[in-house]
């Protein structure tokens, strides 16, 4: 129960002013610019955009600056901003096969058309603190260049699809209807795969990472391989009504992960591989992989597998994946609960008095 409480205006003003001062830190240190954040803390910017479900690197940089680097607070700021803008349209589905690939690896095939492209990855760094970075103005090594190979870079899983060994992902025949959208309609269960993918694409990375990890440790085991991870720019196209054709409005960076999983087969389907799918804004490889694991785990019922772990429980996953919702409900405990607590206090006092009285008799 909430009761209106007045007072504290002066304290609140003072707290906000102090926060602004703390945010700025030591004034003798130069202030961060948004360009610096966007260019040099790019992975934090990408994470804020992904979890805010709003692609705009400059605004994500501003949110990070305003939130002093608190990612969930920055996500909240960007979500709030999003509600001030009208939605003009939905894009055509992005074509990740046509991505300008900057990284593309497969753990299932060594030799594949287009090859294994490592890209600007942390995978082969030594994870030793680089004290050279502590000194400013150091020389930046020049990335070597080579001649790109001819020919396309097909999705790895399509090679298995061609052989009939991998389930084929086909769109429904009728796509005239709307795409289900959890920002427009409250979630109800069963939600179905499009809403699950939307929820996970904007879900908290830590939550999905832990859930994906739990499937590997046996809570809904499904034997995944990283069939393909690809990262790079894709163009976004929008149908413009007054033109009657789709306009390419620019590029965004995406990371896609397709896992390859076993499927024993059933009465109607032969044994084959199935997949889990992860797609996120920016360079979010860890999250794309976790999302693919959880997507596949959530398909347990569809594929006739026993539902044994939390990662396989659609309602559990989708109800708890959103960090703004989670943060709001956890932090609402800070709001005044003075009256509720008075009631509980009276109850505990009464129970104790009664027990004392009974003991005395």
């Amino acid at each position, binding site marked *: 129960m909430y009761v209106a409480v007045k007072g504290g205006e002066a304290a609140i003003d003072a707290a906000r002013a102090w926060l602004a001062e703390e945010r700025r830190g030591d004034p003798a240190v130069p202030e961060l610019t948004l360009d610096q954040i966007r260019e040099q803390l790019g992975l934090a910017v990408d994470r804020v955009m992904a979890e805010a*479900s*709003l*692609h*705009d690197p400059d605004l994500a940089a501003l949110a990070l600056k305003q939130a002093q680097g608190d990612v969930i607070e920055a996500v909240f700021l960007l979500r709030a901003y*999003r509600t001030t*803008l*009208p*939605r*003009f*349209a*939905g*894009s055509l589905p*992005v074509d*990740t*096969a046509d991505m*300008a690939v*900057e*990284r593309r690896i497969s753990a299932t095939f060594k*030799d594949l058309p287009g090859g*294994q*492209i*490592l*890209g*600007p990855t942390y995978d082969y760094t030594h994870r030793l603190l680089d004290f050279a970075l502590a000194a400013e103005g150091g020389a930046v090594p020049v*990335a*070597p*260049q*080579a001649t*790109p*190979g001819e020919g396309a870079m097909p*999705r790895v899983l399509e090679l298995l699809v061609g052989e009939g060994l991998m389930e084929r*992902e*086909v*769109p429904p025949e009728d*796509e005239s209807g709307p795409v289900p*959208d*959890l*920002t427009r309609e409250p979630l109800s269960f069963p939600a179905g*795969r*499009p*809403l699950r*993918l*939307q929820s996970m*694409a904007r879900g908290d990375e830590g939550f999905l990472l832990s859930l994906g990890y739990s499937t590997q440790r046996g809570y809904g085991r499904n034997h995944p391989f990283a069939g393909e991870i690809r990262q790079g720019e894709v163009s*976004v196209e929008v149908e413009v009504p*007054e*033109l009657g054709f*789709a*306009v*390419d*409005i*620019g*590029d*965004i960076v995406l990371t*896609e992960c*397709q896992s390859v999983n076993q499927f024993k087969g059933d009465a109607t389907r032969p044994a084959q591989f199935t*997949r889990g*799918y992860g*797609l996120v*804004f920016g360079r979010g490889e860890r999250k794309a992989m976790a999302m693919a694991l959880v997507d596949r785990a959530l398909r347990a019922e569809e594929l006739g597998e026993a539902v044994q772990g939390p990662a396989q429980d659609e309602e559990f996953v989708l109800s708890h994946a959103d960090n703004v919702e989670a943060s709001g409900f956890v932090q609402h405990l800070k709001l005044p609960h003075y009256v509720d607590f008075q009631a509980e206090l009276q109850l505990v006092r009464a129970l104790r008095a009664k027990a004392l009285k009974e003991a005395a008799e």
Partner: protein
Amino acid sequence: MTEERRRWLAVLARAPGDELAAAVEGAGAPPCRVVRAAETGLVMVRGRAGGTGERFNLGEMTVSRCTVTDDEGRLGVGWIAGRDKRKAEAVARLDLLLQRPEGALLKARVVAPLAAAQAATREARAAKAAATKVEFFTMVRGDV
């Protein structure tokens, strides 16, 4: 025409706003009316499950758009990623100019160099990616 127009709109959408504004100014714009003033909003970006399957909503992005027209009823349209309304209007004006008889000149003077610069950037990134391509070689038993 449509394919050509799609191509120049894609090039303009990726170009720096300042360069486009300068190009509009330099073109000596003909009488042209704003049908829809430049505004910023959102596009919901969609993906497909597994890359080829059912559609789903990936997340939104900021976009800006603007529509202009001339006395002959041509429409110039600007749709761009991001919140730069001035740029959306510059794209719309250039799109209109490019459809007019004098468009060919503008295409050579503005669109072609922008397209070349964008291609060069793309190729440089592709070349860096190519340098990180793994060349496997098999160890022969006994080799160290």
